[in-house]
């Protein structure tokens, strides 16, 4: 088969991995970021942690697998983005280290519970923001040279469009954490989550509109994408569904709505990028699924691995979520 078919398949698979990651780790990162608002004492903090403790590391594997798949399928995109965003990614790594250990440390280290609770929140909030900033950058274009090396600096990454995408992603993740809290936890924590949900929806709507406006101004060429507009409509519908479900006290539906919003976000991101993986300020240098790709042989091997492995992963992930169904006790 033609290499281009496999390049397209891997564009979709990596998008899928990132999408599932954002849905699943979205509620982990979101509820952890919201913990200072949701939980007022150690007992409530324990409930917040208990709601994600059995599943968070399985959820993070979606990110690890997405990263490894990008490396394997499109090594040139992986190399350019990871080395180009060096300092920003180091911040993400420092944060992810803290968030990975903070629950165990919080649980056992009674003298420093406050420190570990803060580490848990900051370690989740920072990646939740920076993932979107990174995505915003590869969508709006980064400066690179002919050898695919990034020529900007740390502040290049903080332009308005990436920042707005970062805030949009953050607000979607917070919303996901909020609907998760209402779904999984009873009592005061759920009440507080319930009361901030509409505020988060408003913030999210503001950033979404800002993102659309900036896209119209800065990236007029991607406005012709019909799939992108379908994504935007699905996104708006999903968020309205979250609002209505919350109003009628149907927490599962609210969680479904905010999860579906991520599907829409990734459809929009994919539509904005395709066939590029990294858009650049000089479009002839764009890093695409063709010029960044591994050989067709490697892509075939990888496709076999994914075809065998992923259905099994999805099946047992479903099973284990069923095991942990129900409210945190």
């Amino acid at each position, binding site marked *: 088969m033609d290499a281009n078919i496999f390049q397209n398949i891997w564009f979709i698979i990596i998008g899928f991995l990132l999408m599932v990651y954002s849905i699943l780790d979205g509620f982990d990162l979101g509820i952890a970021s919201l913990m200072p608002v949701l939980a007022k004492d150690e007992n409530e903090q324990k409930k917040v942690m208990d709601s994600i403790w059995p599943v968070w590391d399985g959820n*993070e594997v979606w990110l690890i697998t997405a990263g490894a798949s990008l490396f394997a399928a499109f*090594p040139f995109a992986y*190399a350019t983005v990871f*080395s180009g965003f060096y300092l920003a990614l180091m911040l993400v790594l420092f944060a992810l280290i803290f968030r990975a*250990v903070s629950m165990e440390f919080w649980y056992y280290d009674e003298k420093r519970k406050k420190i570990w609770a803060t580490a848990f929140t900051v370690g989740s909030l920072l990646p939740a923001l920076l993932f979107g900033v990174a995505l915003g950058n590869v969508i709006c274009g980064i400066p690179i040279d002919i050898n695919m090396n990034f020529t900007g600096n740390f502040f290049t990454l903080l332009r308005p469009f990436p920042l707005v995408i970062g805030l949009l992603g953050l607000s979607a993740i917070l919303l996901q954490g909020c609907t998760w809290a209402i779904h999984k936890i009873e009592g005061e924590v759920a009440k507080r989550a319930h009361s901030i949900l509409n505020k988060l929806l408003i913030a999210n709507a503001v950033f979404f509109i800002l993102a659309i406006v900036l896209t119209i101004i800065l990236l007029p060429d991607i406005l012709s994408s019909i799939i992108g507009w379908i994504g935007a409509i699905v996104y708006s519908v999903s968020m309205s569904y979250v609002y209505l479900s919350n109003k009628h006290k149907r927490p599962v539906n609210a969680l479904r709505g905010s999860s579906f919003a991520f599907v829409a976000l990734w459809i929009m991101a994919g539509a904005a990028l395709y066939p590029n993986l990294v858009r650049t300020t000089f479009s002839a240098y764009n890093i695409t699924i063709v010029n960044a790709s591994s050989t067709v042989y490697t892509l075939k091997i990888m496709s076999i691995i994914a075809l065998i492995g992923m259905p099994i992963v999805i099946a047992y992930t479903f099973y284990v979520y069923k095991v942990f169904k129900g409210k945190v006790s």
Partner: protein
Amino acid sequence: MDVVMLSRIQFGLAAGVHFIFPSLTLGLTLLVLIYEYKFYKTDDDIFKTISSFFIKILGLVFALGVATGIVLEFSFGTNWAEYSRMVGDIFGAPLAAEGIFAFFLESVFLGVLLFARNRVSKKVYLLSAFLVFFGSHLSGLWIIIANSWMQTPAGFAIEGGRAVLTNFWAAALNPSTLVRFAHVIIAGWITGSLFAAGIAAWYLIKRLHTNEAQNILKTALIIFCIMSLAQFASGHIHSVQVTRIQPEKMATFEALWQTQQGAPMSIIGIPVESQKKTYYEIKIPKLLSLLAYFDPNAEVKGRDAFPDDELPPVVLPYFSYHIMIGLGSLFALIGIISIVLLLTKKLFNARWFWYVLFFAIPLPIIANEFGWIAAEVGRQPWAVYKVLKTADAVSIIVPASHVAFSLVIFSLIYLMLIVMFIMILTKIIKKGPQSEIY
């Protein structure tokens, strides 16, 4: 310091700290599987208590493994972008396969072990213990495949300035994969079993949890004894492979300066690279030739057979290799003593030996670290043996100041992680085996 050196130190630090946790995980998941199986078969609560105790420790070890592991995956792109471009066609696939086949399995079912004893049937719980065991070992296999390909690359061709995969199985099962996998798995089982035996010994010293402690001690020491002896076999096969396929590496491990027939094995000495001479050396004549080629007069290549710019430094690999072998020999000795004490039924009275076991807890971790330093520094100056030099693998655009900055922060964070790990581990151990996990 230049950016290559800084990046090497940072990657070495990240991998070195990370390696503490997966090696413990390998041994702990084996113990959990054994005890869950015993509990399933007998329904005796003591096995459940012991297993829960190890699962609790596994939860901590695993969280640290995840925290330190994700850094490595990012590092190939952040610090070694030229490496990623040059060999991404080959090197990325095993990492992706590790995620898909192994790491998901391990992580998802560890959640069941930690939190769902009362939510699933005994059968499913036992199956989960098996899947965590299986996942962690399979994960090790894929990582060893990736790392072994850097040592003894195979199944590829150089096309258009990059290495491309031509034969997946040849690359995955390259000449050093299987023996290195065996060597690392056995090392993990040695680490985990001595860790468990040391904790049990401490309980006996303190006269705490005697029933559990005796049970753990017996089980752990049987594993430890077998594995510490088996490690000689895997170590030997590995050395033969290195001598034949990476001869300059073995010449460096042994500080063998000149190519010679009937090459001796260096037991200990002080090699001085600039003088190409080893001082105060104790060596066994002809042993290296005998071990590597089963012929005491066979020719073994010395460092003089290779160009200077393709040779690793001597001192660090030499000492790392010898410390590893020294510790490995000590483990075999401890293993044999354990079995003698066990068979003569003196194990539960041999107070002196309990102290030995307790103080030996960190030694396998030290042996693992030195073994790994020997393997990786011994591969220099290559990132991928004879394909890509480390100096050409680094990210061109990341300035040394940025790497220095991240290195300082990583050092501080890792120091904190290790201190906290030891502190919490001590706390869990002091609390003792209980049937509840959290």
